[in-house]
C-alpha cells in the first residue's frame, strides 16, 4: 500500500514536470530557431515570451477539430492518444536520480524500477510508430498515407541499429536495469575521464544518437511530415486539440529520447568528480536530479540546433544510410565490444 502511494506521488510529479517541460521545449525550439535565423522569436506573451506555451495550448484547445468525411473516426481519434501516451510512458523506467531520503524512507528516483528497463524503452519506441501509421491511414488522405508509410519504413530501418547499438551498452553493463547502467558509468577511465558510455563506445553512441533522431522524426529525418512535399505528412488532416496532442507528442518524444541518451550514454544523473567532495546524502540527491535535468536540456538543445544545421535527407539517402552505414556500424560496435570484453575479463 505504502509503495503504491509513493509510486502514485512520483507518477503525478513526473507527469506534471514532463508536460511542463514539453510545453517549454516548444518555446525553446521556437526561440532557438529564431536566434539561429537572426530573428527574436516569440517575446510578446509575458516576460521574454515565457507564457507563450500557455497561449499556444489555449489556442489549440479552443480551435475547431475538423475530421475528414471519409476518415475512420475511431482510429482518427485514437492515433494522437497513442502517440502521446507512448511518449510519456517511456519515461517511467528512466532513473532521474539515485535515491533520496524523505520522511525516514529511502525513495528510489525512478517510477518503475523494472529489471528489463532497456527492453521496455525499445518496445515502447516501436509502439510509437502505430500512432503515426494509424493517423496517416485513418485520415484517408494521400499525403497523410505517404507520411505514415515513410514513417513505418524509417522506423523499421532505424529500430534495428537503435537496438543493436544498445546491445553494446548492455554488454558493458551486464544488466538490463537502467539504474545499473547509470551506476556502471560512475567509475573513471584511467582515473580521470568519467566512464560514460559515450567515451567507452563512441561508435555505438553515434549510431544510437542518429537512430534516436530518426525514431523521434526530427530533422534531418523528418520525412514523415516533410512539409515542402507532403503538406503536413501524417498530421495533415488533424486540427484543434488532436493536432495539439501530436505536437506535444513530438516534443515529448524528443525529451524522452534525450533522457534515454543521457541515461545510456552520458552518465545519467551522475556528475563527474562530485563523489570526491563527500557531501551530505540529501545534497547529493538534489545535485543528481539537477545534473540529470541539465544533461537532458543540453541534449535537447543539441537536437534543436541540429534541426537548423542539416537539411532533410532524401528518401533513398535515408534508406542507404540506415542499412548500409548505421546497421554495419552497430554490428561492428557489438563485435569490438565483445572482443574487448573477452580479452580483458
Amino acid at each position, binding site marked *: 500500500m505504502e509503495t503504491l502511494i509513493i509510486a502514485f506521488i512520483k507518477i503525478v510529479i513526473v507527469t506534471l514536470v514532463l508536460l511542463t517541460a514539453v510545453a517549454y521545449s516548444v518555446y525553446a525550439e521556437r526561440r*532557438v530557431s529564431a*536566434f*539561429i*535565423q*537572426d*530573428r*527574436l522569436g516569440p517575446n510578446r506573451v509575458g516576460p521574454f515570451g515565457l507564457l507563450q506555451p500557455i497561449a499556444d495550448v489555449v489556442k489549440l484547445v479552443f480551435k475547431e477539430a475538423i475530421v475528414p468525411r471519409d476518415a475512420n473516426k475511431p482510429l482518427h481519434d485514437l492515433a494522437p492518444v497513442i502517440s502521446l501516451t507512448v511518449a510519456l510512458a517511456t519515461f517511467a523506467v528512466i532513473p532521474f536520480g539515485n535515491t533520496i531520503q524523505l520522511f525516514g524512507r529511502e525513495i528510489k528516483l525512478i517510477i518503475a524500477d523494472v529489471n528489463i528497463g532497456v527492453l521496455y524503452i525499445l518496445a515502447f519506441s516501436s509502439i510509437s510508430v502505430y500512432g503515426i501509421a494509424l493517423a496517416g491511414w485513418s485520415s484517408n488522405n494521400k499525403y497523410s498515407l505517404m507520411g505514415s508509410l515513410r514513417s513505418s519504413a524509417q522506423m523499421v530501418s532505424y529500430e534495428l541499429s537503435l537496438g543493436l547499438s544498445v546491445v553494446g551498452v548492455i554488454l558493458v553493463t551486464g544488466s538490463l536495469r537502467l539504474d545499473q547502467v547509470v551506476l556502471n558509468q560512475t567509475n573513471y577511465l584511467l582515473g580521470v575521464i568519467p566512464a560514460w558510455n559515450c567515451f567507452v563506445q563512441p561508435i555505438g553512441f*553515434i549510431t544510437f544518437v542518429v537512430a534516436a533522431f530518426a525514431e523521434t522524426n526530427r530533422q534531418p529525418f523528418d520525412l514523415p511530415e516533410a512539409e515542402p512535399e507532403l503538406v503536413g505528412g501524417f498530421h495533415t488532416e488533424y486540427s484543434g486539440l488532436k493536432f495539439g496532442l501530436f505536437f506535444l507528442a513530438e516534443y515529448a518524444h524528443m525529451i524522452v529520447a534525450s533522457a534515454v541518451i543521457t541515461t545510456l550514454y552520458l552518465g545519467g544523473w551522475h556528475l563527474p568528480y562530485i563523489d570526491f567532495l563527500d557531501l551530505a546524502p540529501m545534497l547529493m540527491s538534489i545535485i543528481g536530479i539537477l545534473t540529470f535535468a541539465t544533461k537532458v536540456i543540453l541534449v535537447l538543445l543539441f537536437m534543436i*540546433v*541540429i534541426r*537548423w*544545421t*542539416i537539411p532533410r535527407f532524401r528518401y533513398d539517402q535515408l534508406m542507404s544510410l540506415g542499412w548500409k552505414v548505421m546497421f554495419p556500424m552497430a554490428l561492428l560496435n557489438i563485435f569490438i565490444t565483445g572482443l574487448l570484453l573477452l580479452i580483458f575479463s
Partner: protein
Amino acid sequence: MKDNGSVKRVIRKEDLTFLQKAYITEIAKGLRLTIGKIFQPKFTHNYPDEPWPFQPSFRGRPVLVEEDGIERCVACGLCSRVCPSLAIEVQASETELEKERYPIRFEINMIRCIFCGFCEEVCPEEAIVMSDEYLLAFYQSRDAIYGKDKLLMSTERLAKRLEFLRENR
C-alpha cells in the same frame, strides 16, 4: 535505366575527401556556424517598443510651423493651389500683427494627403513643413480632417527638419 532527356542525372563530385564523406566533421562545422549565429546580434527591430530613428529627410504628415505661439502662415493659399490631391483648404483673415494676414481656418484632409511635400516646397514663409509623425489612423472619416488645433507644431519640435530644409533648398 533509360535516359529520356527530361531526367536530370546528378553526378556526385568525386573529389570529396574521406572526412567529408564520413559527414561527422562536416556536421561539426555546420554546428559551429549555427551555434555562433545564436550569439550574434539580431536583425529584428523591436518596432513599437523601440521607435524607428528618422532621417530629417523623412516626409511625415504636413504641419504648420508655430513660432512664439503663433503660426507663420500668411494664408496666401499657394499650398492649397499646388496640392495635387486637393487636400488643403485655407480661409484667410486679417490681423493686427506685422504679417497682416493669417489663416482663420486651415484644414488638411489626411485621407486625401499623399505626402508629396509640394506644399512645403511652394510655401514662401516656410510655414508648412513635413513632420516626422506618420501614425495616422481614424475610426471615422470626419476625424481625418485636421484643423489648426492638430496642425500646429512648435519650431523646437521641427528643428531638425527646418535645418534640413535650409541646407538643401
